[in-house]
């Protein structure tokens, strides 16, 4: 029997290219290290609220361009160096600097960090973003120690309650409680191991065999077998992700909104959610998820209506439509693809499924925009802005939306923002830029006795400090 102060968590992918969240984009890096090894100024909680972490408090100037953070005192890095305003400045300058491989480099490049004293920093932003504190709670905004920063990928040094004990590449990362943590006594777990199990069948087997205690974001296909098993608890939480059938808005005949609408109308979102996610999803009508600020229900704009789909196609003068759906290797895409292809065939659209690897998706679909349609989940919390990017892979261009988005960015009052956001959602839905499918729900399967698990996951993180055994 395993000791009650250790826990084994499983995840599908191994952190890559290392354990430094500023060095790569993989969410798996954050899942292992954020809030456990590294800490940020703010901390995002499971309800999406932003609370202090390394910063004790902060103030915002009325024009939303100047943030003043007061830092926690007496905090040390794992290597004994003190945490202070200089570390903050170093971290943010590094993230936005030349040669930075930080995913959010562009954002950090627009920030200027001023050290006021050892425990006070001021951040000046050029772009207004009401969600700035949220951003500072993400893994790209971790505070690193200047001397150890270059080797963070293999020997991470942070201020968090855990430090790296061992990384068996391809197998697991083991973290142990750091006794120098400011609240070491309040951390129930002494050791946490992350095991990497990409194969869905192996994931299920590992859980069933008791090799693994917690598995966040389990492949939905495996979920039913745990549903009625008393040994396990199931946590179903909302995400900020949007799974869509993205369409190349410049390709003929997809440049005709009627064709796009016909496609959307041919798709029964409920069936897609069943087929792709075992029912773990909420239908969406636009690129926005329920629960986010300003959400409006747009699922009625392009409802499931095969007859209308046929009519629309006729109206557009399209017959015998052949389209290719390019599918990345994730299960939701491959499974959803099969369902959607079958549904499209009912309205006379022959959809050929083309499976590609990530590398090919990135270079073919994302890079060269060489595709008709693709199924993809956009996991970034707020990314309506992508519709305003002229060179984005969707090839969507709408002066109306660009204008609207510009206004959203400049609007500070939440109520106004919410209204504008609602407008933007409706516009995207009416233009039927994509066939918007669903907001996936993340399912966590865990041993019944594990306490403190997050249900909702606004960002991908495992808050180890909260976990314990019953």
């Amino acid at each position, binding site marked *: 029997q395993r000791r009650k102060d250790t826990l084994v968590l499983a995840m599908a992918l191994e952190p890559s290219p290392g354990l430094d969240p500023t060095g790569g984009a993989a969410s798996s890096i954050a899942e292992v290290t954020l809030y456990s090894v590294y800490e940020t100024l703010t901390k995002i909680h499971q309800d999406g609220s932003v609370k202090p972490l390394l910063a004790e408090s902060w103030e915002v100037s009325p024009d939303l361009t100047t943030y003043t953070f007061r830092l926690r005192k007496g905090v040390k890095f794992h290597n004994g160096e003190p945490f202070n305003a200089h570390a903050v400045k170093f971290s943010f300058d590094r993230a936005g600097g030349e040669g*930075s491989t930080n*995913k959010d480099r562009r954002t950090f490049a627009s920030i200027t960090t001023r050290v006021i004293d050892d425990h006070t920093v001021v951040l000046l932003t050029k772009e207004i973003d009401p969600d700035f504190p949220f951003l500072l709670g993400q893994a790209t905004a971790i505070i690193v120690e200047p001397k150890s920063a270059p080797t963070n990928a293999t020997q991470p040094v942070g201020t968090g309650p855990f430090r790296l004990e061992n990384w068996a*590449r391809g197998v*697991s990362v083991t973290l142990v409680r750091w006794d120098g943590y400011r609240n070491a006594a309040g951390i129930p777990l002494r050791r946490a191991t992350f095991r990497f199990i990409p194969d869905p069948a*192996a994931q299920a087997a590992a859980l069933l065999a008791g090799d693994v205690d917690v598995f966040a974001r389990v492949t939905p296909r495996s979920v039913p077998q745990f549903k009625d098993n008393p040994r396990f608890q199931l946590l179903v939480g909302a995400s900020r992700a949007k799974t869509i059938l993205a369409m190349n808005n410049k390709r003929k005949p997809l440049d005709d909104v009627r064709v796009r609408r016909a496609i959307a109308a041919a798709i029964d979102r409920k069936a897609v959610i069943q087929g792709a996610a075992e029912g773990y999803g909420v239908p969406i009508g636009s690129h926005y998820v329920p629960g986010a600020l300003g959400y409006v229900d747009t699922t009625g704009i392009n409802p499931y209506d095969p007859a209308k789909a046929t009519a629309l196609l006729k109206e557009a003068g399209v017959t015998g439509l052949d389209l290719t759906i390019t599918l990345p290797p994730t299960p939701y895409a491959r499974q959803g693809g099969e369902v959607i292809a079958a549904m499209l065939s009912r309205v006379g659209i022959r959809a050929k499924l083309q499976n590609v690897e990530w590398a090919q998706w*990135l270079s073919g679909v994302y890079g060269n925009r060489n595709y008709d349609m693709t199924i993809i989940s956009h996991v970034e919390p707020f990314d309506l802005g992508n519709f305003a990017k002229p060179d984005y892979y969707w090839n969507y261009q709408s002066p109306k939306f660009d204008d609207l988005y510009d206004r959203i960015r400049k609007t500070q009052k939440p109520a106004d923002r919410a209204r504008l956001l609602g407008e933007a959602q409706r516009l995207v839905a009416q233009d039927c830029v994509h066939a918007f499918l669903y907001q996936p729900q993340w399912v966590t399967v865990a041993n019944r006795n594990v306490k403190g698990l997050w249900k909702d996951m606004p960002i991908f993180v495992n808050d180890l400090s909260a976990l314990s055994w019953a």
Partner: protein
Amino acid sequence: MSVFLVKRLITLAATLAGTSLVVFLVLEILPGNAAQILMGPDASPEAVQALAARLGLDQPATGRYLHWLAGLFTGDLGTSYAYSSPVSELIAERLTLTVPLAVLAMALTTVIALAAGVYAASRHNKAGDLGVMALSQAGIAIPNFWFAILLILVFSVHLRWFSAVGFPGWEEGVWPALQSLLLPAVSLAVVQSAILARITRSAVLDVLREDFVRTARAKGLSRRATLWGHVLRNAMIPVITVMGLQFAELLAGTIVVETVFNLPGLGRLIFQSIANRDLVVVRNCVMLLAAMVVIVNFVVDVLYAAIDPRVKAATL
């Protein structure tokens, strides 16, 4: 050194050189690059480019090939993009799993196949023979990943005798490590031993028909003594050829089995690295696998000569 060995060594070297070129060229035409994958779709293009430069992806191909070749000799195999650690270290780590797994599987294969094959041959056309052959037919017909999943369901999930997936590493002790390799090795060995058992059986039967077996019996040796003393060694000649080929399939089979059992072995490293376009790793791993196969076949040839004194004379 005999001409035989020298000749075989030269072809060995030529084969390996050819392999390196093929591997490099095939990987060169892969679409997509590692930097883009590492950074994901939401990363800014500057960050991607910065990473590409850091990884050396912007160098010309010939330069990288020669650099790699040189590295093969010095042991400096480059640095993995995805793991940002030396490839040689990475491979060495993975080999501590894959080699024992392959060896264990091969050992199981050999033991099961030889025992079953010899037994069947010695009871030619009797119930024992038919039984063994029926089993081996079944063994050949089962896809190994399917059998692997079955093993997990039975032994790990239901009986809980073994852990379902993963590998504790040799630091945790030899026994737990071996334990976690047992089911994978069995699922690899089932098909191969079924095939090998048939080969062994027919080889033994063929040898049993040889005149010298009758000679041996005429000297007053018992059936058993004849079998062990005269038949087996001669029967090993075709058996060893097949074993050499099987080792190659076994190594490739580890890709599947390592996936099912979630073992951090070389096979899975290749598989993942290709998906990640971590070409430095792929290149070296594929090269290594190919080299292992080629070397095993070389060893088979040498064994041949050791077993059968005529071969050396004939292939000189």
